[in-house]
Protein backbone atom coordinates (compact mmCIF):
# COMPACT_ATOMS: atom_id res chain seq x y z
CA UNK A 1 0.00 0.00 0.00
CA UNK A 2 2.83 2.32 0.92
CA UNK A 3 4.55 1.47 -2.34
CA UNK A 4 1.40 2.28 -4.24
CA UNK A 5 1.08 5.62 -2.45
CA UNK A 6 4.74 6.35 -3.16
CA UNK A 7 4.31 5.54 -6.85
CA UNK A 8 1.13 7.62 -6.98
CA UNK A 9 2.94 10.60 -5.49
CA UNK A 10 5.92 10.11 -7.73
CA UNK A 11 3.73 9.97 -10.81
CA UNK A 12 1.82 13.16 -10.06
CA UNK A 13 4.29 15.19 -8.05
CA UNK A 14 7.74 14.39 -9.41
CA UNK A 15 9.51 17.75 -9.71
CA UNK A 16 9.57 19.09 -13.23
CA UNK A 17 10.72 22.27 -14.93
CA UNK A 18 8.42 25.27 -15.24
CA UNK A 19 9.41 25.68 -18.87
CA UNK A 20 7.70 22.49 -20.03
CA UNK A 21 4.35 23.40 -18.54
CA UNK A 22 4.72 27.03 -19.58
CA UNK A 23 5.31 26.08 -23.18
CA UNK A 24 2.42 23.61 -23.10
CA UNK A 25 0.18 26.42 -21.80
CA UNK A 26 1.34 28.81 -24.49
CA UNK A 27 0.84 26.33 -27.32
CA UNK A 28 -2.41 24.83 -26.04
CA UNK A 29 -4.20 28.10 -25.39
CA UNK A 30 -2.63 29.71 -28.45
CA UNK A 31 -3.91 27.00 -30.78
CA UNK A 32 -7.27 26.91 -29.04
CA UNK A 33 -7.60 30.69 -29.36
CA UNK A 34 -6.84 30.60 -33.07
CA UNK A 35 -9.14 27.60 -33.62
CA UNK A 36 -12.03 29.07 -31.65
CA UNK A 37 -11.76 32.63 -32.93
CA UNK A 38 -14.13 32.11 -35.91
CA UNK A 39 -16.50 29.88 -33.93
CA UNK A 40 -19.77 31.55 -32.94
CA UNK A 41 -21.56 30.05 -29.94
CA UNK A 42 -24.09 32.88 -29.68
CA UNK A 43 -26.41 31.31 -32.28
CA UNK A 44 -27.28 28.57 -29.80
CA UNK A 45 -29.20 31.22 -27.91
CA UNK A 46 -31.54 31.74 -30.86
CA UNK A 47 -33.19 28.33 -30.62
CA UNK A 48 -36.31 27.68 -28.58
CA UNK A 49 -36.71 25.02 -25.93
CA UNK A 50 -37.87 22.56 -28.57
CA UNK A 51 -34.22 21.76 -29.27
CA UNK A 52 -33.11 21.90 -25.61
CA UNK A 53 -32.22 18.37 -24.43
CA UNK A 54 -29.84 18.99 -21.53
CA UNK A 55 -27.05 16.62 -20.59
CA UNK A 56 -27.08 15.49 -16.98
CA UNK A 57 -24.71 18.13 -15.64
CA UNK A 58 -26.58 21.05 -17.20
CA UNK A 59 -29.91 19.57 -16.10
CA UNK A 60 -28.88 18.98 -12.50
CA UNK A 61 -27.18 22.38 -12.20
CA UNK A 62 -30.13 24.11 -13.92
CA UNK A 63 -27.82 25.67 -16.48
CA UNK A 64 -29.63 26.85 -19.58
CA UNK A 65 -28.83 28.67 -22.80
CA UNK A 66 -28.33 32.42 -22.45
CA UNK A 67 -29.88 34.84 -24.94
CA UNK A 68 -27.90 35.57 -28.11
CA UNK A 69 -26.58 38.94 -26.91
CA UNK A 70 -25.43 37.52 -23.59
CA UNK A 71 -23.75 34.58 -25.30
CA UNK A 72 -22.00 36.97 -27.63
CA UNK A 73 -20.50 38.83 -24.66
CA UNK A 74 -19.60 35.61 -22.84
CA UNK A 75 -17.79 34.20 -25.86
CA UNK A 76 -15.95 37.49 -26.40
CA UNK A 77 -14.71 37.38 -22.81
CA UNK A 78 -13.81 33.71 -23.23
CA UNK A 79 -11.81 34.29 -26.40
CA UNK A 80 -9.99 37.17 -24.72
CA UNK A 81 -9.21 34.93 -21.76
CA UNK A 82 -7.78 32.31 -24.14
CA UNK A 83 -5.49 34.94 -25.63
CA UNK A 84 -4.43 36.20 -22.19
CA UNK A 85 -3.83 32.64 -21.01
CA UNK A 86 -1.73 31.94 -24.10
CA UNK A 87 0.56 34.92 -23.70
CA UNK A 88 0.52 34.49 -19.94
CA UNK A 89 -0.67 37.95 -18.99
CA UNK A 90 -2.68 37.73 -15.77
CA UNK A 91 -2.25 34.03 -16.49
CA UNK A 92 -3.89 32.60 -13.36
CA UNK A 93 -7.19 34.55 -13.60
CA UNK A 94 -7.17 34.19 -17.38
CA UNK A 95 -6.92 30.40 -17.13
CA UNK A 96 -9.68 30.29 -14.51
CA UNK A 97 -11.98 32.39 -16.69
CA UNK A 98 -11.06 30.31 -19.75
CA UNK A 99 -11.92 27.09 -17.91
CA UNK A 100 -15.22 28.29 -16.43
CA UNK A 101 -16.57 29.97 -19.55
CA UNK A 102 -15.11 27.26 -21.77
CA UNK A 103 -16.89 24.63 -19.73
CA UNK A 104 -20.18 26.43 -20.39
CA UNK A 105 -19.64 27.39 -24.02
CA UNK A 106 -18.12 24.10 -25.15
CA UNK A 107 -20.69 22.15 -23.18
CA UNK A 108 -23.64 24.12 -24.54
CA UNK A 109 -23.91 22.47 -28.00
CA UNK A 110 -24.10 19.01 -26.43
CA UNK A 111 -27.48 19.98 -25.00
CA UNK A 112 -28.95 20.23 -28.48
CA UNK A 113 -29.60 16.62 -29.36
CA UNK A 114 -26.22 14.89 -29.43
CA UNK A 115 -23.18 14.64 -27.20
CA UNK A 116 -20.06 14.75 -29.32
CA UNK A 117 -16.67 13.82 -27.97
CA UNK A 118 -13.99 15.87 -29.66
CA UNK A 119 -13.80 18.57 -26.99
CA UNK A 120 -14.08 16.77 -23.65
CA UNK A 121 -10.31 16.51 -23.28
CA UNK A 122 -9.99 20.23 -23.99
CA UNK A 123 -12.47 21.03 -21.22
CA UNK A 124 -10.66 18.76 -18.77
CA UNK A 125 -7.28 20.20 -19.74
CA UNK A 126 -8.49 23.76 -19.26
CA UNK A 127 -9.78 22.76 -15.83
CA UNK A 128 -6.39 21.35 -14.84
CA UNK A 129 -4.53 24.40 -16.11
CA UNK A 130 -6.88 26.69 -14.19
CA UNK A 131 -5.68 25.04 -10.98
CA UNK A 132 -2.04 25.07 -12.03
CA UNK A 133 0.95 27.42 -12.00
CA UNK A 134 1.34 27.15 -15.76
CA UNK A 135 1.94 30.89 -16.01
CA UNK A 136 5.28 30.74 -14.25
CA UNK A 137 7.29 30.35 -17.47
CA UNK A 138 7.01 31.50 -21.06
CA UNK A 139 4.56 34.14 -19.95
CA UNK A 140 4.23 37.88 -19.91
CA UNK A 141 3.77 37.61 -16.15
CA UNK A 142 7.20 35.98 -15.81
CA UNK A 143 8.76 38.52 -18.14
CA UNK A 144 7.30 41.34 -16.08
CA UNK A 145 8.39 39.62 -12.86
CA UNK A 146 4.82 39.39 -11.64
CA UNK A 147 4.73 35.76 -10.62
CA UNK A 148 7.47 35.85 -7.99
CA UNK A 149 9.03 32.57 -9.19
CA UNK A 150 12.08 31.80 -11.23
CA UNK A 151 11.49 29.83 -14.36
CA UNK A 152 14.52 27.64 -13.73
CA UNK A 153 12.92 26.30 -10.58
CA UNK A 154 11.75 22.70 -10.62
CA UNK A 155 8.66 21.85 -8.69
CA UNK A 156 5.87 19.27 -8.44
CA UNK A 157 3.49 22.04 -9.47
CA UNK A 158 4.85 21.84 -13.00
CA UNK A 159 4.37 18.11 -13.38
CA UNK A 160 0.87 17.23 -12.28
CA UNK A 161 -1.07 19.28 -14.89
CA UNK A 162 0.82 17.53 -17.68
CA UNK A 163 0.21 14.14 -16.09
CA UNK A 164 -3.46 15.04 -15.66
CA UNK A 165 -3.82 15.48 -19.41
CA UNK A 166 -1.95 12.21 -19.95
CA UNK A 167 -4.33 10.34 -17.67
CA UNK A 168 -7.43 12.00 -19.14
CA UNK A 169 -6.34 11.16 -22.69
CA UNK A 170 -5.51 7.59 -21.68
CA UNK A 171 -8.94 7.13 -20.11
CA UNK A 172 -10.63 8.48 -23.24
CA UNK A 173 -8.78 6.14 -25.59
CA UNK A 174 -9.25 3.22 -23.22
CA UNK A 175 -12.98 3.86 -22.87
CA UNK A 176 -13.40 4.03 -26.66
CA UNK A 177 -11.56 0.73 -27.09
CA UNK A 178 -13.55 -0.99 -24.35
CA UNK A 179 -16.83 0.31 -25.87
CA UNK A 180 -16.01 -1.35 -29.17
CA UNK A 181 -15.06 -4.65 -27.54
CA UNK A 182 -18.09 -4.59 -25.27
CA UNK A 183 -20.66 -3.85 -27.97
CA UNK A 184 -19.16 -5.74 -30.89
CA UNK A 185 -16.26 -7.85 -29.68
CA UNK A 186 -13.80 -8.99 -32.31
CA UNK A 187 -16.60 -8.67 -34.86
CA UNK A 188 -15.66 -4.99 -34.98
CA UNK A 189 -12.29 -5.99 -36.42
CA UNK A 190 -12.97 -9.11 -38.48
CA UNK A 191 -16.34 -8.31 -40.07
CA UNK A 192 -17.02 -5.83 -42.87
CA UNK A 193 -18.25 -3.32 -40.30
CA UNK A 194 -15.31 -0.96 -40.55
CA UNK A 195 -15.49 -0.91 -44.36
CA UNK A 196 -19.17 -0.02 -44.14
CA UNK A 197 -18.40 2.74 -41.63
CA UNK A 198 -15.82 4.19 -44.02
CA UNK A 199 -18.28 4.16 -46.91
CA UNK A 200 -21.25 5.43 -44.88
CA UNK A 201 -19.24 8.43 -43.70
CA UNK A 202 -19.04 9.65 -47.32
CA UNK A 203 -22.79 10.47 -47.27
CA UNK A 204 -22.55 13.80 -45.39
CA UNK A 205 -23.63 12.40 -42.03
CA UNK A 206 -20.78 13.56 -39.81
CA UNK A 207 -20.05 16.83 -38.03
CA UNK A 208 -17.37 17.27 -40.68
CA UNK A 209 -16.97 15.54 -44.02
CA UNK A 210 -13.88 13.34 -44.46
CA UNK A 211 -10.99 15.42 -45.76
CA UNK A 212 -10.22 12.77 -48.39
CA UNK A 213 -11.97 9.94 -50.22
CA UNK A 214 -9.27 7.51 -49.10
CA UNK A 215 -11.86 5.76 -46.95
CA UNK A 216 -13.38 4.38 -50.14
CA UNK A 217 -9.99 3.01 -51.20
CA UNK A 218 -9.46 1.37 -47.81
CA UNK A 219 -12.97 -0.12 -47.93
CA UNK A 220 -12.09 -1.77 -51.26
CA UNK A 221 -9.30 -3.74 -49.57
CA UNK A 222 -10.71 -5.90 -46.75
CA UNK A 223 -7.27 -6.81 -45.42
CA UNK A 224 -6.41 -3.13 -45.07
CA UNK A 225 -9.74 -2.37 -43.47
CA UNK A 226 -9.31 -5.21 -40.96
CA UNK A 227 -5.76 -4.09 -40.20
CA UNK A 228 -6.86 -0.54 -39.55
CA UNK A 229 -9.75 -1.70 -37.37
CA UNK A 230 -7.42 -3.98 -35.42
CA UNK A 231 -4.85 -1.24 -34.93
CA UNK A 232 -7.55 1.19 -33.82
CA UNK A 233 -8.87 -1.14 -31.12
CA UNK A 234 -5.35 -2.11 -30.09
CA UNK A 235 -4.09 1.45 -29.75
CA UNK A 236 -7.19 2.56 -27.89
CA UNK A 237 -7.34 -0.32 -25.45
CA UNK A 238 -3.62 -0.43 -24.70
CA UNK A 239 -3.14 3.32 -24.52
CA UNK A 240 -3.08 3.55 -20.68
CA UNK A 241 0.21 1.61 -20.71
CA UNK A 242 1.86 4.87 -21.76
CA UNK A 243 1.39 6.09 -18.20
CA UNK A 244 3.81 3.47 -16.93
CA UNK A 245 6.10 2.63 -19.80
CA UNK A 246 8.35 5.04 -21.61
CA UNK A 247 8.81 2.55 -24.44
CA UNK A 248 5.07 2.17 -24.88
CA UNK A 249 4.83 5.96 -24.92
CA UNK A 250 7.23 6.15 -27.84
CA UNK A 251 4.93 3.89 -29.87
CA UNK A 252 1.38 4.43 -28.65
CA UNK A 253 1.36 8.22 -28.31
CA UNK A 254 2.30 8.85 -31.96
CA UNK A 255 0.01 5.96 -32.96
CA UNK A 256 -2.86 7.63 -31.12
CA UNK A 257 -2.20 10.89 -32.94
CA UNK A 258 -2.01 9.06 -36.25
CA UNK A 259 -5.29 7.37 -35.39
CA UNK A 260 -6.98 10.76 -34.84
CA UNK A 261 -5.54 12.14 -38.06
CA UNK A 262 -6.80 9.02 -39.82
CA UNK A 263 -10.30 9.55 -38.45
CA UNK A 264 -10.32 13.11 -39.75
CA UNK A 265 -8.99 12.11 -43.17
CA UNK A 266 -11.06 8.99 -43.69
CA UNK A 267 -14.21 9.40 -41.62
CA UNK A 268 -14.73 13.08 -40.90
CA UNK A 269 -15.28 13.69 -37.16
CA UNK A 270 -13.41 16.83 -36.21
CA UNK A 271 -10.84 15.89 -33.60
CA UNK A 272 -8.59 18.91 -34.16
CA UNK A 273 -9.18 20.24 -30.65
CA UNK A 274 -8.35 16.86 -29.15
CA UNK A 275 -5.12 16.82 -31.14
CA UNK A 276 -4.10 20.16 -29.61
CA UNK A 277 -3.73 18.36 -26.29
CA UNK A 278 -0.83 16.42 -27.76
CA UNK A 279 1.45 19.34 -26.87
CA UNK A 280 1.40 17.93 -23.33
CA UNK A 281 3.22 14.79 -24.48
CA UNK A 282 6.24 16.63 -25.81
CA UNK A 283 9.22 16.93 -23.42
CA UNK A 284 9.95 20.45 -24.59
CA UNK A 285 13.08 20.83 -22.50
CA UNK A 286 14.67 17.85 -24.19
CA UNK A 287 13.46 19.01 -27.59
CA UNK A 288 15.17 22.34 -26.93
CA UNK A 289 18.39 20.58 -26.03
CA UNK A 290 18.25 18.42 -29.13
CA UNK A 291 17.41 21.35 -31.39
CA UNK A 292 20.12 23.54 -30.02
CA UNK A 293 22.63 20.72 -29.84
CA UNK A 294 24.13 22.40 -26.87
CA UNK A 295 22.94 24.75 -24.17
CA UNK A 296 24.35 28.04 -23.01
CA UNK A 297 23.92 28.97 -19.39
CA UNK A 298 24.98 31.97 -17.41
CA UNK A 299 27.77 32.11 -14.82
CA UNK A 300 28.36 28.40 -14.73
CA UNK A 301 24.85 27.67 -13.56
CA UNK A 302 22.80 24.94 -15.07
CA UNK A 303 19.19 24.05 -15.27
CA UNK A 304 18.95 20.32 -14.77
CA UNK A 305 16.89 18.71 -17.49
CA UNK A 306 14.90 15.88 -15.97
CA UNK A 307 13.95 12.70 -17.73
CA UNK A 308 11.55 10.00 -16.74
CA UNK A 309 14.45 7.69 -16.07
CA UNK A 310 17.27 9.99 -15.19
CA UNK A 311 18.62 13.42 -15.88
CA UNK A 312 20.72 15.20 -18.42
CA UNK A 313 23.25 16.57 -15.97
CA UNK A 314 25.09 19.49 -17.46
CA UNK A 315 28.77 20.27 -17.24
CA UNK A 316 30.48 23.23 -18.81
CA UNK A 317 33.58 25.34 -18.83
CA UNK A 318 33.79 28.87 -17.48
CA UNK A 319 34.26 30.39 -20.89
CA UNK A 320 30.52 30.58 -21.39
CA UNK A 321 30.92 29.67 -25.05
CA UNK A 322 31.61 26.00 -25.09
CA UNK A 323 28.76 23.60 -25.50
CA UNK A 324 27.31 21.91 -22.47
CA UNK A 325 27.91 18.19 -22.34
CA UNK A 326 25.26 15.91 -21.04
CA UNK A 327 25.49 12.54 -19.44
CA UNK A 328 22.66 10.28 -18.65
CA UNK A 329 22.26 9.08 -15.10
CA UNK A 330 20.09 6.18 -13.98
CA UNK A 331 16.89 6.84 -12.07
CA UNK A 332 18.37 6.31 -8.60
CA UNK A 333 21.23 8.66 -9.31
CA UNK A 334 18.75 11.12 -10.70
CA UNK A 335 16.76 11.13 -7.50
CA UNK A 336 19.79 11.62 -5.31
CA UNK A 337 21.21 14.32 -7.47
CA UNK A 338 17.86 15.96 -7.81
CA UNK A 339 17.35 16.05 -4.06
CA UNK A 340 20.88 17.38 -3.62
CA UNK A 341 20.14 20.07 -6.13
CA UNK A 342 16.94 20.93 -4.35
CA UNK A 343 18.68 21.33 -1.01
CA UNK A 344 21.50 23.24 -2.53
CA UNK A 345 19.11 25.48 -4.40
CA UNK A 346 17.41 26.49 -1.20
CA UNK A 347 20.73 27.17 0.47
CA UNK A 348 21.77 29.49 -2.31
CA UNK A 349 19.45 31.49 -4.43
CA UNK A 350 16.68 29.20 -5.54
CA UNK A 351 18.42 28.09 -8.71
CA UNK A 352 20.15 24.72 -8.96
CA UNK A 353 23.92 24.80 -9.23
CA UNK A 354 26.19 22.14 -10.51
CA UNK A 355 28.54 20.71 -7.95
Amino acid at each position, binding site marked *: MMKLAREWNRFWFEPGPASNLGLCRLLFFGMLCVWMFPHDFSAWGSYSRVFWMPVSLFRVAHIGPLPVDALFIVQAVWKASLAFAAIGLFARPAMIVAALLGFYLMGLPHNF*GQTQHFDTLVVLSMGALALSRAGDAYSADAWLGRNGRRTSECDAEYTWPIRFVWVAMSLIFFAAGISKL*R*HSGLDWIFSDSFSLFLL*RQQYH*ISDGDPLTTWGIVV*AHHPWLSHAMAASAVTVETLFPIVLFSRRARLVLVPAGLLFLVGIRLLMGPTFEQFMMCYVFWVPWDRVAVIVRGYAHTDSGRVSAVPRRDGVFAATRTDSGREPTRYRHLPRAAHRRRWNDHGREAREHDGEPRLR
Partner: protein
Amino acid sequence: MTPPRRILLNAVFLALIVGSAYDIVRDQEHWPLSQYPMFSVAWHSSTFAWLRLFGVTADGREFPLASNRYIAPFDQSRLPKALRRIMDGPDGPAKTREAVAECLARYTTLGEERLHNGPPLVAMRLYELEWTIDPDAANVDRPDSRRLITEVRR
Protein backbone atom coordinates in the same frame (compact mmCIF):
# COMPACT_ATOMS: atom_id res chain seq x y z
CA MET B 1 3.10 22.61 -2.18
CA THR B 2 1.01 22.83 0.95
CA PRO B 3 -0.69 19.71 2.37
CA PRO B 4 -4.23 21.10 1.78
CA ARG B 5 -3.37 21.79 -1.84
CA ARG B 6 -1.96 18.32 -2.26
CA ILE B 7 -5.18 16.88 -0.81
CA LEU B 8 -7.27 19.03 -3.16
CA LEU B 9 -5.27 17.92 -6.18
CA ASN B 10 -5.46 14.26 -5.18
CA ALA B 11 -9.23 14.65 -4.91
CA VAL B 12 -9.31 16.08 -8.46
CA PHE B 13 -7.20 13.19 -9.78
CA LEU B 14 -9.42 10.63 -8.08
CA ALA B 15 -12.57 12.33 -9.38
CA LEU B 16 -11.27 12.05 -12.93
CA ILE B 17 -10.26 8.40 -12.58
CA VAL B 18 -13.24 7.19 -10.55
CA GLY B 19 -15.74 9.19 -12.62
CA SER B 20 -14.34 7.85 -15.87
CA ALA B 21 -14.20 4.30 -14.51
CA TYR B 22 -17.84 4.59 -13.45
CA ASP B 23 -18.93 5.64 -16.94
CA ILE B 24 -16.84 2.89 -18.55
CA VAL B 25 -18.17 0.17 -16.26
CA ARG B 26 -21.80 1.34 -16.38
CA ASP B 27 -21.67 2.18 -20.09
CA GLN B 28 -23.06 5.63 -19.35
CA GLU B 29 -22.23 9.19 -20.26
CA HIS B 30 -21.91 12.18 -17.93
CA TRP B 31 -20.35 14.92 -20.01
CA PRO B 32 -17.48 15.81 -19.88
CA LEU B 33 -16.86 12.22 -18.82
CA SER B 34 -18.03 9.47 -21.12
CA GLN B 35 -17.75 5.84 -22.14
CA TYR B 36 -16.96 7.10 -25.68
CA PRO B 37 -19.36 4.87 -27.60
CA MET B 38 -18.84 6.38 -31.06
CA PHE B 39 -18.77 3.74 -33.82
CA SER B 40 -18.74 1.01 -31.16
CA VAL B 41 -21.67 -0.99 -32.52
CA ALA B 42 -20.61 -3.04 -35.54
CA TRP B 43 -22.54 -2.12 -38.69
CA HIS B 44 -23.59 -4.95 -40.99
CA SER B 45 -26.45 -3.54 -43.01
CA SER B 46 -25.85 -2.46 -46.57
CA THR B 47 -28.53 0.23 -46.19
CA PHE B 48 -29.02 3.09 -43.79
CA ALA B 49 -31.51 5.90 -43.23
CA TRP B 50 -30.77 9.50 -42.29
CA LEU B 51 -32.86 12.63 -41.76
CA ARG B 52 -32.07 15.58 -44.01
CA LEU B 53 -33.52 19.03 -44.49
CA PHE B 54 -34.29 20.28 -47.99
CA GLY B 55 -34.81 23.88 -49.02
CA VAL B 56 -37.58 24.85 -51.45
CA THR B 57 -37.08 27.94 -53.61
CA ALA B 58 -39.80 30.20 -55.03
CA ASP B 59 -39.75 28.35 -58.37
CA GLY B 60 -40.44 25.07 -56.60
CA ARG B 61 -36.91 23.77 -56.91
CA GLU B 62 -35.75 21.61 -54.03
CA PHE B 63 -32.16 21.05 -52.84
CA PRO B 64 -30.62 19.22 -49.88
CA LEU B 65 -29.07 21.26 -47.09
CA ALA B 66 -26.15 18.85 -46.98
CA SER B 67 -23.56 21.41 -45.95
CA ASN B 68 -23.02 22.62 -42.39
CA ARG B 69 -23.04 26.26 -43.47
CA TYR B 70 -26.80 26.08 -44.16
CA ILE B 71 -27.65 24.81 -40.70
CA ALA B 72 -24.93 26.27 -38.47
CA PRO B 73 -24.31 26.09 -35.55
CA PHE B 74 -25.77 22.61 -36.01
CA ASP B 75 -23.95 20.09 -38.18
CA GLN B 76 -24.95 17.11 -40.30
CA SER B 77 -24.55 14.75 -37.37
CA ARG B 78 -26.13 16.69 -34.52
CA LEU B 79 -29.16 18.15 -36.31
CA PRO B 80 -30.57 14.87 -37.69
CA LYS B 81 -30.10 13.23 -34.30
CA ALA B 82 -31.78 16.14 -32.53
CA LEU B 83 -34.68 16.03 -34.99
CA ARG B 84 -34.99 12.27 -34.51
CA ARG B 85 -35.21 12.70 -30.75
CA ILE B 86 -37.83 15.42 -31.18
CA MET B 87 -39.84 13.21 -33.57
CA ASP B 88 -39.71 10.29 -31.17
CA GLY B 89 -40.53 12.42 -28.13
CA PRO B 90 -43.89 13.51 -26.78
CA ASP B 91 -45.98 15.61 -29.18
CA GLY B 92 -43.48 14.69 -31.88
CA PRO B 93 -45.15 15.92 -35.09
CA ALA B 94 -45.98 19.39 -33.75
CA LYS B 95 -42.56 19.86 -32.18
CA THR B 96 -40.84 18.63 -35.33
CA ARG B 97 -42.67 21.31 -37.34
CA GLU B 98 -41.59 23.89 -34.78
CA ALA B 99 -37.99 22.71 -35.00
CA VAL B 100 -37.97 22.80 -38.81
CA ALA B 101 -39.50 26.29 -38.73
CA GLU B 102 -36.57 27.39 -36.55
CA CYS B 103 -34.14 25.86 -39.01
CA LEU B 104 -35.81 27.81 -41.82
CA ALA B 105 -35.49 31.04 -39.84
CA ARG B 106 -31.86 30.23 -39.07
CA TYR B 107 -31.14 29.55 -42.77
CA THR B 108 -32.57 32.96 -43.64
CA THR B 109 -30.51 34.68 -40.94
CA LEU B 110 -27.31 32.97 -42.09
CA GLY B 111 -28.05 34.07 -45.66
CA GLU B 112 -28.62 37.66 -44.57
CA GLU B 113 -25.30 37.56 -42.72
CA ARG B 114 -23.67 36.22 -45.93
CA LEU B 115 -22.54 33.09 -44.16
CA HIS B 116 -23.86 31.00 -47.04
CA ASN B 117 -24.74 31.77 -50.64
CA GLY B 118 -27.82 29.58 -50.88
CA PRO B 119 -30.95 30.93 -52.59
CA PRO B 120 -33.85 32.42 -50.62
CA LEU B 121 -36.31 29.77 -49.50
CA VAL B 122 -40.07 29.75 -49.35
CA ALA B 123 -40.26 26.45 -47.53
CA MET B 124 -38.21 23.80 -45.80
CA ARG B 125 -38.89 20.07 -45.85
CA LEU B 126 -37.64 17.30 -43.61
CA TYR B 127 -37.15 13.94 -45.31
CA GLU B 128 -35.97 10.57 -44.15
CA LEU B 129 -33.60 9.37 -46.84
CA GLU B 130 -32.52 5.79 -47.33
CA TRP B 131 -29.45 4.67 -49.20
CA THR B 132 -27.92 1.40 -50.23
CA ILE B 133 -24.24 1.89 -49.47
CA ASP B 134 -22.42 1.99 -52.79
CA PRO B 135 -18.85 0.59 -52.92
CA ASP B 136 -17.74 3.90 -54.44
CA ALA B 137 -20.24 6.08 -52.59
CA ALA B 138 -21.39 7.18 -56.04
CA ASN B 139 -25.03 7.57 -55.02
CA VAL B 140 -24.56 10.18 -52.32
CA ASP B 141 -26.96 12.51 -54.13
CA ARG B 142 -29.35 9.74 -55.19
CA PRO B 143 -30.93 8.00 -52.21
CA ASP B 144 -32.98 4.88 -52.92
CA SER B 145 -36.04 6.35 -51.29
CA ARG B 146 -37.19 9.33 -49.31
CA ARG B 147 -40.12 9.87 -47.00
CA LEU B 148 -41.49 13.34 -46.26
CA ILE B 149 -41.73 13.91 -42.53
CA THR B 150 -42.92 17.49 -42.50
CA GLU B 151 -42.91 20.74 -44.46
CA VAL B 152 -42.87 24.30 -43.17
CA ARG B 153 -43.65 27.34 -45.32
CA ARG B 154 -42.71 30.93 -44.61
